[in-house]
């Protein structure tokens, strides 16, 4: 009896003395987990879970364990808003979100009003970083402005194209990228000309009409902006080859994701594009944080991580470093430690953030040499 009593007493005392930081830090992810973008959203979520797991193995953050709550926004803004409200009620400390820009734009003000730190991993709209309804915004993926620079530079200086055409996805993302590239052409005093612009809808899967027009214009390069990596883009690549178009296929930054290689295989050979992360190209092959991540991700999920996974991983790493530096989870404090600052040792290497929250990208321009195996060769 006395043993029991002392046991109970001990338990009582222990519970009083034990730190209340048995309370975990909660990281929420809101990405599409169903529907057409489901596999992509799953990739990013998996990367987040992996990095959080690595952090927990090293003792967590601020001495506390991190748990991940992942939710599905179904690529629908109205649903994303509901999920954001749920995150608020579950008192998460961070939300990593954003595959589709409209969903991000809908969720941001809600998270901002609730004072929850919000990092946009993938969505590319410029509006995400502008406007007063989303102060302290942070975005990992590159923006159209910077992307346009690297593509324009390749066309003007490397390819030295005389005639250029655009095959552009008809929405703010595609049109914005084209406008940015044309502006860069002016800045670089491009001596060639833009002979033709063909447009298509995101959901389109048949492009013969546009490709026929482009073929007859016979430019040196066709700049393609198509973010439908699961259906439209692979189909476009195959039809491009079927139409026997000789112009160089120059893809906008970041469109050549895993599914494009898997589906279009060798039709991708010869495509030139650029991106901000590669599991098997320098400089990433010599960045320890990057190779560690690639190895761990491959081990856990059986495939090498692509840029989307890297974005998810970096989101966690950037936030974790800011939290450790400021010893705080407060939105304003953490955001201030990221915006305009340098963060070391992410999967992208040492990165610099602009004052508006945009992570500065470092690009590698590549050519596809073996599409079936996604083998790329860096240019210059």
């Amino acid at each position: 009896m006395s043993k029991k009593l002392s046991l109970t007493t001990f338990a009582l005392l222990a519970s009083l003395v034990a730190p209340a930081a048995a309370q975990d830090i909660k990281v929420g992810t809101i990405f599409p987990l169903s529907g057409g973008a489901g596999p992509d959203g799953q990739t990013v979520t998996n990367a987040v879970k992996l990095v959080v797991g690595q952090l927990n193995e090293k003792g967590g953050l601020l001495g506390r364990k991190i748990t991940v709550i992942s939710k599905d926004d179904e690529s629908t803004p109205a649903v994303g808003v509901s999920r954001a409200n749920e995150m608020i009620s579950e008192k998460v400390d961070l939300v990593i979100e954003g595959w589709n820009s409209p969903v991000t734009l809908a969720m941001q003000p809600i998270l901002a009003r609730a004072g929850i730190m919000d990092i946009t991993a993938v969505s590319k709209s410029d509006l995400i970083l502008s406007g007063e309804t989303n102060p302290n915004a942070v975005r990992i993926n590159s923006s159209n402005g910077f992307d346009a620079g690297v593509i324009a530079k390749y066309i003007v200086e490397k390819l030295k194209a005389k005639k250029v055409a655009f095959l552009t996805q008809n929405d703010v993302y595609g049109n914005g990228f084209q406008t940015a590239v044309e502006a860069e052409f002016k800045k670089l005093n491009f001596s060639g000309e833009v002979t033709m612009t063909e447009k298509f809808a995101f959901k389109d899967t048949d492009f013969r009409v546009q490709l026929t027009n482009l073929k007859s214009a016979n430019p040196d390069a066709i700049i393609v902006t198509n973010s439908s990596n699961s259906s439209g883009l692979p189909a476009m690549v195959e039809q491009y080859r079927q139409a026997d178009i000789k112009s160089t296929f120059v893809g906008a930054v970041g469109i050549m994701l895993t599914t494009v290689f898997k589906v279009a295989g060798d039709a991708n050979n010869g495509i030139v594009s650029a991106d901000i992360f590669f599991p098997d190209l320098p400089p990433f092959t010599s960045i320890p944080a990057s190779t560690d991540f690639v190895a761990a991700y491959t081990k856990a999920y059986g495939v090498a991580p692509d840029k989307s996974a890297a974005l998810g991983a970096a989101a966690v790493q950037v936030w974790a470093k800011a939290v450790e530096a400021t010893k705080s989870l407060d939105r304003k404090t953490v955001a201030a430690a990221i915006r305009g600052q340098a963060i070391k040792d992410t999967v992208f290497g040492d990165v610099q953030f602009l004052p508006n929250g945009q992570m500065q990208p470092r690009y590698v321009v590549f050519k596809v040499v073996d599409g079936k195996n996604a083998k790329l060769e860096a240019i210059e």
Partner: protein
Amino acid sequence: MTVIDTSSPAPMSALRAAAVVVLIIVGFFMPRLLGGGSVAYSTLTTIAIFAVMCYGVDLVLSYLGEVSLGHTLFWAIGGYAAANLSVKYGLNGWSTALAAIALCIAAALFLGMVTLRTREFVFSLVTYAAAVVAYEIAFNWDAIGGSDGVVGIPALILPFGFATFSGLSQEDLWPVAFVLLLLTLGFIARFRRSKLGTTALMVQMNPALATSLGVDPRKIRLAVFVLSAPITGLAGWLYGYQRGYVGPDMFESYFLVLMLTAVVLVGRRILIGPLIGIALLIAQQNLLSLGGDWNKIILGSILAIVLILWPTGLVGLYRRFGKINSSK
């Protein structure tokens, strides 16, 4: 409950009036009764706004007997009016609401006039096509937002002369949503007893009788359709302020299927039917969500099963089991 009420509205008994007042008071304080947290406020505000959205479709479906597949058009007009006019021109809530109502009436008049002589299912097809065309326009017209929509919708400002209401958070907007819901319910209640409402029912139940009495079914359909548009439009208007962001996603079938399911679920021509319906659906999606795919299956199944097995909705089912005289 007979389907066609007597022509002179029965005076509400004092007891009934008291009950309604109590319900209103309880309803207003519902978020606080449910804990007062942000989720309570946001969920209930969303339910209120979506319920008003559904009542627009309810008006056409329950009283006219036709399906409007284009009410997302009015929902979007309301949202876009609120967004563009407040962000670009700084207009206050009254102005944007008035614009939303006017635009919805204009659009409904146009659609109604052009379908004046067509049959019901052509009317549905036309409304569907109109929503598709409007979506394409909204998606491509950068001046009103384009594919990314309009961000940064400011707080809802409603000047009252002696004071100005400014609402940004869910807690602030709840009273507005609640009042909008009450106004809609009151409107529908009046409509049911009005000449137009009873005539519409007669046209639905017995078109031959209606024509023999000199009623033009086409004009009735036009009038009811035009009346229903600003209801959904005002819901979209408030949704714009609540979400702070408006885009072409307002046209998505997600809202259409919600509207239809909420209206048929509980039963037609029951005043608070759509409200209960939408509350159940939103509660399932937010609190008992089984994932995007299962939610679709649930929503679609409810819609199909209710219409196939219990066309009179849950209330009809209850009546059949409760052996109460059912309405025909």
